[in-house]
């Protein structure tokens, strides 16, 4: 990172290039593509949470005059168990197949069993009732604690716990165990003047993206296929789908539509492989759109967790030992974000002695997917609650306690690397100086503060910038834009090329028009794809200099570049980008630059959130009355969208803390599969969320960028629950802090 670089475009609040299409309704989302001759696909879903499938009789459905194809698990080419990474969470390809269409067992209410394609949506829906399935109903296993008991019904009789000292000798619901440690926690606790330990619970939650999963596909006679879908990563949709259907990648083109929210939930496949089977069998394009009910029951929510955290500290606030046991529900198939949960739980703290164990456990709920900093909100909630309790019991300000133990440059993480320069201390200082922290509280009000950490990732990104004869350009990137990233790409390219941002048009290209890009996730896009954009822009500049050199008959080294102008260092000549592009035909053809990278050096982002609540002591209702989100962005390319990420993370986290939860009945059937009773916060439920952008540059990015998309959802759970605890005088260990639970806590106190 060049010191004190003066930016011309970076840091401005420009109008987003995708804004016009979105506000006018022109933008095309997942369900917006229709093709000539297209038919509709619908999915038959399990009415049971846990059952063996004894028989499926398709004959009556096949006889329906409007039914053109039916798909079941038998339509997958032979799929074998194999570790497979596409999207954010590692999986086994056979689990993916059995989640998309159940094999011999249904593992959650809503689990897909078969799909029908028919001439109309209503005929497809209608024909589902003609499929006859014979079940042997099994007891549902609905809670991680129950699932881990030796007597629990076992979901997969071939699953043996990985990561034990001694290999497991019998199948269980515990897919794996992991352990992280440094120092000696026993010795650490022996030094402590105060040890606090508690059990915590967080419920199953959904990302709550507004746009349901949707796809339109076409399988062609020559074996070529096209998938249009709403996804965070169309290259990984291609990889997963091609693997499931045994297709070469070159035969499958995936086009990412505009995306109406994802938050990690659109990083895997549900409909796409099924729709392709239906299209192949019927010879017609097939469209499939989930209902909201299906999204809740059968897409990937965030893990419910049960955890135990124990922390010891000396009277002066020095933390001597931290210990955690974290049990994550994976849903029906292994692969919860237990790993990142273990890695993040104590990372805001520079403490010598740590011991963390994690369990990945299957239950009869939908297979979890990534959800914004997957694993971290649940894990850090438990840790931050105990930290706040220690601060309270020692009579130390919670910011001072954190400053005394804050992770900083050189801190040895429990999971491996030492931290580079990070901004936690700056976030804590900003919290201390914030107007909110200085303000006084009234009766029935409480204040909570929590820190949060997320790694951020880099990875593969590919970008092409095609220059036009008038000096304008098109940026072809492959990262679906879920948070305003096209604006950032446009600004970074403009900064590097030295031309106005409106001369550059950023486009999210399909899998055939740009090389591979990793899925939009891990807060990677502005960092990694941004670096690829910068590299592509530098490639364009290099060529522009060569062309100018050719015009002037000098070497490229004799050409300087400043503010979008080539300068002849041997004379007074100047050539603008537009002038060079206009005459490019005379100097070797039109100009295109590429940046194909595997980005390293992602910069972790720390955050500190402050929450004030008022609790109605008669009803237990919690109102968030003031909220400040403070986070290190490294460098805010477009400050409005950085603030938007902070506010969005806080809003989702407040919902998680206050009212969101999957409510199941005794048969394992979700009772609130809709936005009426799955209560995400409304605009009127929230105060304006104040933001503070801290900028401690990431030295591995040319402009200093860290990712900002995920960290913001980590602190709110503990910030809100601590504020409620302070207001009512009872520590809230179980989420959500819904009115009945808060009222019960108030009544339990007296």
């Amino acid at each position, binding site marked *: 990172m060049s010191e004190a670089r003066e930016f011309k475009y970076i840091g401005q609040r420009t109008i987003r290039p995708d804004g016009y299409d979105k506000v006018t309704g022109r933008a095309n989302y997942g369900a917006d593509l229709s093709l000539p001759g297209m038919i509709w696909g619908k999915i038959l879903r399990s009415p049971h949470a846990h059952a063996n499938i004894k028989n499926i009789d398709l004959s009556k459905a096949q006889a329906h005059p409007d039914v053109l194809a039916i798909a079941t698990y038998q339509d997958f080419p032979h799929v074998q168990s194999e570790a497979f990474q596409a999207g954010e969470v590692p999986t086994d390809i056979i689990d993916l197949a059995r989640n998309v269409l159940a094999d011999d067992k249904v593992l959650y209410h809503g689990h897909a069993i078969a799909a029908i394609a028919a001439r109309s949506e*209503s005929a497809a*829906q*209608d024909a589902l009732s003609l499929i006859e399935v014979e079940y042997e109903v099994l007891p549902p296993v609905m809670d991680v604690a129950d699932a881990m008991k030796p007597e629990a019904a076992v979901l997969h009789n071939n699953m043996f716990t990985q990561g034990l000292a001694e290999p497991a000798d019998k199948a269980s619901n515990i897919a794996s165990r992991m352990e992280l440690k440094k120092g000696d926690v026993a010795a650490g606790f022996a030094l402590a003047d105060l040890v606090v330990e508690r059990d915590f619970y967080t419920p199953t939650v959904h990302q709550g993206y507004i746009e349901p999963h949707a796809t339109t596909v076409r399988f062609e006679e020559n074996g070529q296929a096209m998938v249009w879908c709403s996804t965070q990563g169309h290259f990984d949709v291609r990889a997963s789908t091609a693997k499931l259907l045994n297709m070469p990648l070159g035969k499958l083109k995936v086009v990412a539509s505009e995306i109406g929210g994802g938050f990690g939930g659109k990083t895997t496949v549900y409909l796409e492989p099924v729709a392709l089977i239906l299209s192949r069998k019927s010879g017609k394009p097939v469209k499939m759109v989930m209902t909201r009910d299906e999204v809740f029951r059968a897409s990937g929510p965030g893990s419910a967790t049960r955890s135990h955290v124990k922390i010891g500290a000396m009277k002066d606030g020095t933390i001597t030992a931290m210990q955690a046991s974290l049990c994550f529900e994976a849903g029906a198939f292994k692969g919860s974000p237990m790993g990142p949960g273990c890695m993040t739980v104590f990372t805001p703290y520079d403490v010598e002695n740590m011991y963390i164990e994690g369990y990945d456990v299957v239950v009869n709920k939908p297979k979890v997917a990534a959800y914004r900093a997957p694993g971290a909100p649940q894990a850090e909630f438990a840790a931050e609650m105990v930290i706040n309790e220690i601060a309270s019991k020692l009579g130390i300000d919670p910011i001072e306690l954190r400053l005394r133990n804050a992770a900083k440059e050189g801190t040895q993480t429990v999971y491996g690397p030492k931290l580079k320069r990070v901004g936690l201390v700056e976030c804590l200082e900003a919290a201390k100086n914030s107007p909110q922290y200085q303000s006084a509280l009234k009766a029935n009000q409480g204040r909570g503060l929590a820190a949060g950490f997320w790694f951020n990732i880099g990875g593969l990104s590919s970008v092409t910038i095609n220059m036009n004869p008038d000096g304008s350009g098109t940026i072809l990137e492959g990262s679906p834009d879920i948070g305003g990233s096209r604006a950032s790409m446009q600004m970074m390219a403009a900064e590097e090329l030295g031309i106005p941002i409106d001369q550059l048009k950023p486009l999210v290209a399909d899998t055939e028009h740009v090389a591979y890009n990793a899925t939009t996730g891990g807060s990677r896009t502005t960092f990694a794809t941004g670096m690829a954009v910068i590299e592509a822009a530098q490639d364009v500049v290099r060529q522009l200099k060569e062309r100018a050199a050719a015009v002037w008959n000098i070497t490229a080294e004799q050409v300087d570049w400043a503010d979008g102008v080539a300068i002849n260092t041997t004379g007074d000549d100047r050539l603008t980008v537009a002038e060079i592009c206009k005459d490019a035909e005379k100097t070797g053809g039109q100009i295109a630059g590429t940046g194909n990278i595997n980005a390293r050096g992602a910069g972790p982002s720390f955050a500190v959130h402050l929450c004030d609540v008022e609790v109605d002591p*008669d*009803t*237990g*209702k919690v109102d968030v009355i003031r909220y400040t989100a403070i986070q290190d962005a490294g460098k805010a390319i477009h400050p409005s969208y950085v603030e938007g990420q902070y506010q969005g993370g806080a809003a989702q986290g407040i919902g998680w803390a*206050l*009212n969101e939860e999957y*409510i199941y009945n005794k048969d394992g059937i979700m*009772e*609130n599969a809709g936005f*009426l*009773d799955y*209560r995400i*916060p*409304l605009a*009127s*439920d929230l105060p304006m969320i104040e933001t503070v952008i801290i900028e401690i540059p990431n030295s591995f990015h040319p402009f200093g960028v860290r990712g900002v998309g995920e960290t913001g959802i980590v602190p709110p759970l503990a910030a809100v629950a601590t504020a409620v605890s302070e207001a009512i005088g009872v520590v809230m260990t179980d989420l959500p802090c*819904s*009115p*009945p639970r808060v*009222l019960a806590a108030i009544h339990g106190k007296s």
Partner: protein
Amino acid sequence: MVSVVYKAPDSIQAAISILSEAEIATKILAGGTDLLIQMQGLVNESRLFVDIKKIPEMMQATLGDQGLDLGPSMCCAEFTAREDIRAVYPGLVEAAFLIGSTQVQGRASVGGNLCNSSPAADTIPALMVNAAICVIAGVKGERSVSVEEFVTGVGTNCMEKGELLKLIQLPRPAKNTSDAYLRFIPRTEMDIAVAGAAVSVTLDDEGVCTAARVSIGAVAPTALLVQEAADALIGTKLDDKALQAAGDAASAAASPITDRRGTVEYRRHVVGVLTKRAAQIAATRARGN
């Protein structure tokens, strides 16, 4: 052959003829904010929809010396904008204002809310405390029933085939009378009552409560008029002790269920809190402050 038929008569008489002669399952369509959701996915049934919004008297409200004549299908947005009605029945207007969202209120109506007969309907307790009468028209003529008689169970009411709720009549409240409605939801709007309470009180010149009606919602198969709660208020100056007693009586009268919106214990407790608070608001209004 499945057929979906839509008819929009322009008079009550024409509507009754259509309703009484219908040979397939028939639904009366007012704003449709409940009905259209209930109809989703029913692709195999023939249905007749009778849209009553083209009937002028269904869409009007007249406030006079005798009280309010409310056309059942007047949309909540129009109803709640009527300052004259709000001045007399503030509790009923605030109940109507809680239905759905701003957009939904452009369609939803008090009559629709009543005929949908949900235990959690916001306007039903407010209608009950105002002693509202339902005027039902049918081929055999008209009949009038109280709201308490109108609603018979979860989603059911006393209307028979061929009948239409043509008018909701509210008597003019006595001097120094006012009402209030409160509901509890975990959020601020766009939700369904976990519990609700409406209270109407009449004060004499000394500030003593001479008449009261208390109705609670979402805590039983239908909204309930709770005489014991009213009795706890009558004869008092609506002091804290009386309000608490009314709240306790409301809690005692409730017979709620546990579901995704609340537990038995929680609903029973909160309906008491709401009753107490609604009585307080109604008293303040009746005192004229």
